[in-house]
């Protein structure tokens, strides 16, 4: 039996997590909220060391030290552009940890099962933890591979994938039933292995643009895994914390999917139906109007209203500081400039805000899509920097396109559009953008950072 004061400490930690989530949902309190969450976790860990008569304390402390150093170094070193894959990775290892915990616990349970009967629901929860934990682990690793572009960002589908996916899942369910009836370690290990296959096959067919939704979904999965693991161990803190993350993660996933105009089912299984694979990956050779930085500087410098549409390419080129400088210079000339931020600009919802905040762009200049979309028609020049899919009119017109139905920024309704791009290559979703071929559009090819500096200098000399 766990002592009462330990239970109370768990309760305090659980409250810390609730306050943390609450804090994280408002800009003013977010950082504080995160710290409160960390304090709650620290409290829980310290109490466990204090309360329980643990063996192997030195080994456990060493393992914690290894994980902590790895976590801090990884989190400090990562470039902000690569942060989504780091979050995916951290999520995956969390799921993996939960699955391993359940396997160790199953080993113990199966040994005592012959003498005392273990509650069937405990065994079902164990099977769930192993299965979903390994799905989350493998799925997150594949997500990491896609975002890091170690794997193709296009949906990967091979013949028989739906059968293999469904088959693995059903066999894993069958083994789970077997596990409940006759507790033993081997079905647990087999469930874990099948879970890895299911997780990989779940994420492989997801197109690059939808990967953020999948990270959020797998995050919710890991939360539920931790909750189930907590039930197996009879630990209220794990149940509460895991359920909180599972519920809020599921809700957040739906918010994100709604922001992209996608249903969750379509995100996950669209490619299997053959819908999501449409689109060229080759750069188009259709004629476009391109021009140099000097001409673009004139357009911008003599405009009254300019909107900037930043995308992931901006951050990859590390051009956000130069962009802020350009906006400052234009502002000094009396041009009214704002940033139009698509909810999924970057690689994750809100990612672009983080990237621009890093470049010290004032929060007030960042306009969300709903707020700014009506103003495009009164805008002289829209400067699209390293973005593509979020202004692609195919989302409105081309049924069957991977991004069809996604709300987009109305850049096509502005007087003029300038695209700053490296090449004519398609966006993350792998489809061509008609907006580049209309008469009111000008292309400015080259490295975004270099061109941005040239633009700044050219505007200064106007």
């Amino acid at each position, binding site marked *: 039996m766990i002592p009462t004061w330990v239970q109370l400490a768990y309760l305090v930690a659980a409250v810390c*997590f609730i306050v943390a*989530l*609450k804090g*994280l*949902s*408002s800009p003013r309190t*977010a*950082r504080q*909220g*995160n*710290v409160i*969450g960390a304090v709650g976790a620290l409290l*829980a*860990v310290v109490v*466990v060391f204090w309360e*329980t008569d*643990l063996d*192997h304390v030195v080994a*456990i402390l060493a393992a*914690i030290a*290894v*994980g902590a150093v*790895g*976590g*801090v170094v990884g989190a*400090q*070193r990562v*470039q*902000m552009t690569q942060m989504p894959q780091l*979050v995916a990775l*951290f999520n995956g290892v*969390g799921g993996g*940890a939960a699955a*391993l915990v359940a396997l*160790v616990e199953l*080993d*113990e349970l199966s040994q005592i099962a012959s003498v005392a009967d273990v509650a069937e629901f405990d065994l079902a929860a164990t099977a769930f933890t192993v299965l979903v934990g390994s799905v989350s682990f493998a799925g997150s690793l594949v997500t990491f591979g896609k975002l890091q572009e170690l794997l193709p960002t296009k949906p990967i589908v091979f013949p028989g994938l739906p059968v293999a996916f469904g088959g693995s899942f059903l066999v894993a369910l069958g083994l789970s039933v077997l596990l409940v009836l006759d507790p033993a370690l081997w079905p647990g290990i087999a469930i874990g292995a099948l879970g890895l296959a299911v997780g990989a096959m779940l994420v492989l067919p997801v197109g690059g643009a939808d990967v953020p939704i999948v990270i*959020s979904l797998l*995050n919710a999965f890991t939360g539920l*895994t931790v*909750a189930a693991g907590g039930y197996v*161990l009879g630990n209220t*803190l794990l149940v509460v914390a895991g*359920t909180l*993350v*599972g*519920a*809020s993660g599921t809700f*957040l996933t739906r*918010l994100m999917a709604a922001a992209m105009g996608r249903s969750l089912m379509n995100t996950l299984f669209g490619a299997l139906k053959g819908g999501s694979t449409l689109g060229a990956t080759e750069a188009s050779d259709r004629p476009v109007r391109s021009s140099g930085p000097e001409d673009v500087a004139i357009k911008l410098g003599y405009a009254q209203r300019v909107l900037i549409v930043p995308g992931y390419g901006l951050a990859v080129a590390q051009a956000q*500081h130069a962009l802020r*400088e350009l906006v400052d210079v234009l502002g000094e000339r009396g041009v009214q400039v704002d940033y139009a*931020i698509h909810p999924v600009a970057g690689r994750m*919802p809100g*990612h672009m805000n983080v990237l621009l*905040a890093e470049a*010290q762009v*004032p929060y007030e200049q960042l306009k*969300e899509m709903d707020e700014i979309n009506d103003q495009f028609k009164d805008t002289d020049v829209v400067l699209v920097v390293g973005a593509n899919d979020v202004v692609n009119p195919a989302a409105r017109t081309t049924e069957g396109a991977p991004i069809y139905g996604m709300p987009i920024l109305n850049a096509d309704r502005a007087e003029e559009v300038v695209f700053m791009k490296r090449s004519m290559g398609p966006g993350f979703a792998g489809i061509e953008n008609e907006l580049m071929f209309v008469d009111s559009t000008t292309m400015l090819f080259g490295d975004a950072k270099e061109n941005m*500096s040239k633009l700044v200098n050219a505007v200064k000399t106007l």
Partner: protein
Amino acid sequence: MDESIVWLTIFVLSVFVGVEVISKVSATLHTPLMSGANAIHGVILVGAMLVTGTTESTIALIVGLVAVVLATLNLVGGFVVTDRMLQMFGRRKPSAPAADQGSAGAGKGASA
């Protein structure tokens, strides 16, 4: 009251709390929120410590220690990376020079 009903109650109430506390989040904070929630489930570390510290078999000990490492990565890394993201939102004024961590600042020579 039956013990399983207590667990069910905790679970159901936590679901509602989880949804309720984040229901008003702005899109700006989706990424840090996801990252913070991600860190919170790293508390599986507690479970990993408990099973590792009470096992007698060597293989289970090794597996448990791997779980401890992974869970700590999730927990510590998650909170640190979330803090780094949120730190960006904090600095408004360009008073501090844009000294990015690591190599990001190295190429920034163009600023006047």
